[in-house]
């Protein structure tokens, strides 16, 4: 396994600490003129999103984390397991509901998602920034009301609920920003 020396420490490095992958999000070099060098690092756990502060001395090393990003296709859900397929190798990967987190709201059969592998095992999946979802159920809208400040909840084909303008009707396709979970526009009627 590759190791990083303190002289290679920088923002964006993916390292392994106590068996877990971390992203270096801040790195400060501190050195009194006549003293030893210190490397003050802030690291984010890539799986749990927790933040860790560590201070290293010159000459210390950190193991590189084996993190790989692949493009996958969402296949289907089986019980509480989500099944994806690597577009290049056709290998299948299973993620638990916990690993998929809120992203289940966007998953449609065949959707291309990027997946992070840690030591070859899937740890997280990210859908495209914008997805189009068909509205399965909502209260009837007020015809002719195109104002976007009057909103209502709608239920889409994945079973998730989103807040939309009141003119959206059943059967419409809406575009959602997956980074915020917010309605963007009506894609088709």
């Amino acid at each position, binding site marked *: 396994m590759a190791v990083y020396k303190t002289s290679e420490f920088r923002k964006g490095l993916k390292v392994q600490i106590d068996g877990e992958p971390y992203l270096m999000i801040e790195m400060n070099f501190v050195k009194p003129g006549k003293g*030893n060098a210190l490397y003050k690092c802030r690291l984010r756990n890539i799986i749990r999103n927790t933040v860790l502060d560590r201070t290293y001395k010159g000459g210390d090393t950190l193991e590189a984390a084996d993190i790989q990003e692949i493009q996958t296709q969402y296949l289907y859900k089986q019980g509480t397991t989500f099944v994806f397929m690597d577009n290049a190798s056709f290998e299948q990967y299973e993620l638990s509901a916990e690993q998929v987190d809120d992203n289940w709201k966007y998953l449609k059969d065949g959707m291309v998602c990027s997946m992070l592998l840690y030591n070859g095992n899937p740890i997280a999946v990210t859908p495209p920034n914008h997805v189009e979802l068909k509205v399965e159920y909502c209260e009837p809208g007020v015809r002719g009301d195109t104002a976007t400040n009057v909103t209502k909840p709608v239920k889409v084909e994945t079973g998730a609920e989103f807040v939309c303008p009141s003119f959206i009707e059943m059967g419409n396709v809406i575009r959602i920003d997956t980074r915020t979970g917010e309605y963007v526009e009506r894609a088709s009627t």
Partner: protein
Amino acid sequence: MIDGGQLSNDWRPTARLDRLRRRAELLRETRAFFTERGFLEIETPVLSRETIVDRHLDPLSVRCDMETGDASDSARGWLQTSPELGMKRALAAYGVSLFQVTRAFRAGEVGVRHNPEFTMVEWYEVGAGIDAGIERLSQYAERLLGRPPARRVSYADAFQAHAGINPHRATIEAMAEAGSRLGKTVPESLPRDPDAWRNWLLAECVEPHLGWGEPAIVWGYPASQAALARLHPDDPAVAERFELYVDGVELANGYHELLDANELAARARSQNRAREAGGKTGLPAPNRLLNAMRAGMPSCAGVALGFDRLVMIATGSTDIREVMAFPWDRA
């Protein structure tokens, strides 16, 4: 576009023009300050056969193929970590107060206050002891930065005030505890060397509080951190070393200079042992300096000041890249 090249903005300087104008003014002021006080401006080699032996300073080495046919000319040279060796040899030979504005190089030092190549102002004042040395440094900061005279604070009092411990007596455990109490991340990998822990506390808990309002000059460092300073004649546990801090930034380091060649040789050996114990390579003994000291160096106070950091303070910059046109990542 050059073949294979990419259109990129990294040819541009990182400093704004107004900051470089201020930098040029401060450079002129520096030369005026020392010249008016009778110091002679001197130049010594940046690339030299000898280098300072310090456990925490890594000089960059250069292969010198001079192609003169002289075998000794294809030796290794060192880019100086400060102009100290050359200036002290000149001091021994000429016996007059000297100053220099030059480039210094330190391998591996990159950060918001560090660039591997930087500008150093270094001066030696013949006949000055520690008090006169501190006074001169304070005057320089007053003139260049327009600050009030510096407040003197002992190393022990600075630690007591900001970390709540006595740095000369505290155990490593007590120092770790003091830093942790102040919310600092304890560096697990530091060796069991009290100076490593003192430096951690200094950098994390003490330095950030020093030199607000009026500059602070810290004096009375532990003898184990004497570097090239004399030990106090009445208290050999303390070195006659001092440092200037402005707005929480370390700007300069000064000594009542060590004159004893045998003592310097012993310190160089001990620094080399510490380097090797820490996995670094040893550095050659500074023989030309040792011979100069044996021939007789006048009693003096010497100071080295980081000019880029001075410009940072003067311009309110928080990153050294804002005050140099082409820092290492653009060099």
